[in-house]
């Protein structure tokens, strides 16, 4: 038992140690790229804003834009550790506060989308693997095709046109009808369309991966043994193949979270959903670097953390992982 705990501890330490260079890599990459990006916020004080050179210089000094890059990175990193992501150039608000307001809606939207996608992809993928070239397999292929082949913005607009404009069943934008929470039904009605698009654009990859993972496990020795024992197809599928493919599918889902969040930029922008995606979009189009850096770093760190947690779960669930090379 003691030794077990030791191994677990060593395993955890190793995972943490590999996460550190990744963390620095993420922060350096984000910081450099956005600082090098063309045209600083000062350019935005162009014609019509009534800003003068003096205004620009004053703003530059107040934002610390007059200091050298490495110095700014270190200062920024120090602030990051203190949970201070700086202030938005556009509205002077704390980026941390801006993000805090957006995390809930984002989690709700992407969470619902992913849960829906998993709920569709798991059974469909397993069925497709179970009976290759059957109707299920074709359905899986067709779904993947729509998911891969149709751009997200098109799904959004087609959905709005169909369900809001033509049928009038669902609201075309926003999170609440009247600007604030007014009961779960109202929220759910607003959630269906955007979450449906998030689901549809991520379900293809998941179906494909589930099917592949299931096919793989079906070829493994223990399945053959199970079959040899005389278990029915159905029992083999449900008890063994499905379970065996859960871990790879879970990995796929988690490794897709950045993509799903990225895809939600377009969805949130079109639906006016107050999440991190629309925050990122307005940050990029307004060249509000503090916000873009903040959101990107928060997403990247969240993904890093989820991966760590996932490793931990693997370690707990599957002893082989702990002893092997992580």
């Amino acid at each position, binding site marked *: 038992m003691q030794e077990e705990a030791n191994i677990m501890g060593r395993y955890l330490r190793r995972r943490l140690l590999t996460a550190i260079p990744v963390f620095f890599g993420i922060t350096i990459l984000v910081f450099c790229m956005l600082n090098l990006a063309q045209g600083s916020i000062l350019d935005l004080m162009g014609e019509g804003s009534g800003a003068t050179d003096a205004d620009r210089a004053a703003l530059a000094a107040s934002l610390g834009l007059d200091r050298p890059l490495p110095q700014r990175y270190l200062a920024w990193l120090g602030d990051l550790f203190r949970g201070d992501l700086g202030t938005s150039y556009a509205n002077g608000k704390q980026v941390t506060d801006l993000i805090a307001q957006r995390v809930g809606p984002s989690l709700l939207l992407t969470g619902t989308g992913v849960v829906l996608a998993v709920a569709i992809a798991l059974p469909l993928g397993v069925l497709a693997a179970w009976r290759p070239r059957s109707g299920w397999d074709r359905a899986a292929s067709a779904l993947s095709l729509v998911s891969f082949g149709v751009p997200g913005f098109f799904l959004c607009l087609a959905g709005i046109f169909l369900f809001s404009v033509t049928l009038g069943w669902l609201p075309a*934008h926003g999170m609440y009808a009247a600007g604030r929470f007014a009961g779960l039904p109202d929220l759910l009605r607003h959630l269906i369309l955007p979450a449906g698009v998030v689901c549809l654009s991520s379900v293809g990859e998941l179906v494909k991966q589930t099917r592949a993972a299931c096919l793989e496990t079906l070829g493994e020795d223990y399945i053959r043994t199970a079959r040899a024992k005389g278990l029915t197809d159905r029992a083999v599928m449900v008890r063994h193949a499905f379970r065996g493919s859960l871990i790879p599918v879970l990995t796929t889902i988690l490794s897709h979270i950045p993509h799903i969040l990225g895809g939600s930029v377009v969805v949130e922008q079109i639906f006016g959903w107050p999440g991190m995606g629309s925050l990122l979009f307005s940050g990029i189009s307004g060249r509000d670097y503090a916000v873009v850096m903040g959101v990107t770093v928060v997403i990247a760190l969240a993904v890093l953390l989820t991966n760590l947690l996932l490793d931990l779960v693997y370690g707990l669930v599957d002893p082989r992982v702990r002893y092997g090379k992580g």
Partner: protein
Amino acid sequence: MRRLIALLLAAALTLGLTACGGEEQAAEPVTVRYGLSNAWDSLMPYNSPSGSNYTRIICDKIYDRLAYVHADGTLDPRGATGWESADDGMAVLFHLDEKAAFHDGTPVTAQHWADTISLITDPNCPALGRGTFSVLAGTDSNGCALEGERLGVEAVDEYTLKLTFKSPTTPEDFLLDKNRELYVLPTHLLADTDPAEVMELDLWDAPVGSGPCKFVEEIPGSQLVLEVNQDYQLGCPDFDRLVVTVIDKSNLLPSLISGDLDYYAFGGNVSVEDAETARASGLEVAEGEVPNTFYELMLNCQTIPSAQVRRAIDLALDKEALCLQSTQGLGEPTATDVTPGAEYTCSLTWQRDVEGARTLLEQGGYDGRTYSLACTSNRSGLAALMQQELDEVGINVTIETVDSAALFSGMADGKYDMAIASHTPGALPLWFTASRLSESNNIFHIADLEPYTYYIDQISASAGWEKRQVLLDKLQELLADQRPFIPLWFGRTLHVQSPTVDNIDYPSSSFSNENIWAWRMKGA
């Protein structure tokens, strides 16, 4: 394993749900849902880095302005009930509305207006957009107060505000030009604050103004909830709340049709084709009466130094086709920047002349170099059409698609040779030229501004229509000869009428003000 998955899923759901819910349900207030395609930035009107119309139209709700500007250039009282010239035209007296009050109940006095202007022009105050005040006596060309000089603002008595200018200015000229950038701030709440730290105040997170709406809550960049100010001096609408949501422009019309929006800024503009779609869906569409867009092709006179070449570009462009492409028939090509239908006129005309353009090109010594033409992404079709027309006479152009902020800054830096821009035209003879042909904002990179500023100063200094018209004709002749920018057309817009709200003054919203106090719910 199954339990684990179920647990994870449940956790994700509850996390999401708790993060955004949990409030008590109150009695249903009547809400008007207002769409906006881009976000405002700051709710402190003098701290907006973009200085965009999106910020202006939001500040228009929370803060009060002196007047209400109609699309045709006429003025209505708002913060001021009336105005008159004083000191031989060098000053204007504004008689303020005595009923006006801030949302905290404090009456708005002339002292508030005077203090606001003193604060914003204070060189220690990190205010943005103070250039507005550079017309006032005692300021430099950036709008900063000059030490040792008397600032041209004074509270004559409790409800009379006096502004003194550098050159003679009529109240109408001043308001048409500056009204949308002149707000009154709750200076009684700022009295103890160092001007250098004014922008740091928590006040701007929940601003107090004296406008027709009160701040309730905000998700910056996405949603703003406002409450109607029942005590606004001009009255109040018959709904309770205004919810402003930022949604992509592709979703504005669909949302209005599906009944998820009551109105979208600015003025529910639609193209001619979308108007058909809107009509087919049962919405009413009205046509704007006065031109509300002016398109120009900005030129960089430093990289295109020859006036002949610049005139050749003017002759090469098929303004008829360009205007038709952009306005679908709701516009008129123009040879000048003087707004048609306004008080002042211009007799210059324009006609496409490909041969003439070729001749001028030769005279101007065009060396076949490639010019860069900047435009925003929604105008890349227009730019492509221009590219073909210029190619016809032998001018090579590449198109750079950029966002509008980068477009203007790129023109100012001299990065681009040409750029397509549009503006809200004004009724004043110098609405376009005065600010652009000046040292502080020489966006066309004109080597010698002297000839232009001579006429501009003369026109602003002279009184009387006739004198000004004569000078304006001379200025326009000079512009036609030098062509530092190419006027393209004046366009009108179509306004989709709100299916739920009556009495909206759609066209005036292009001047960044809306008569929200007069809005009425239909069928109420």
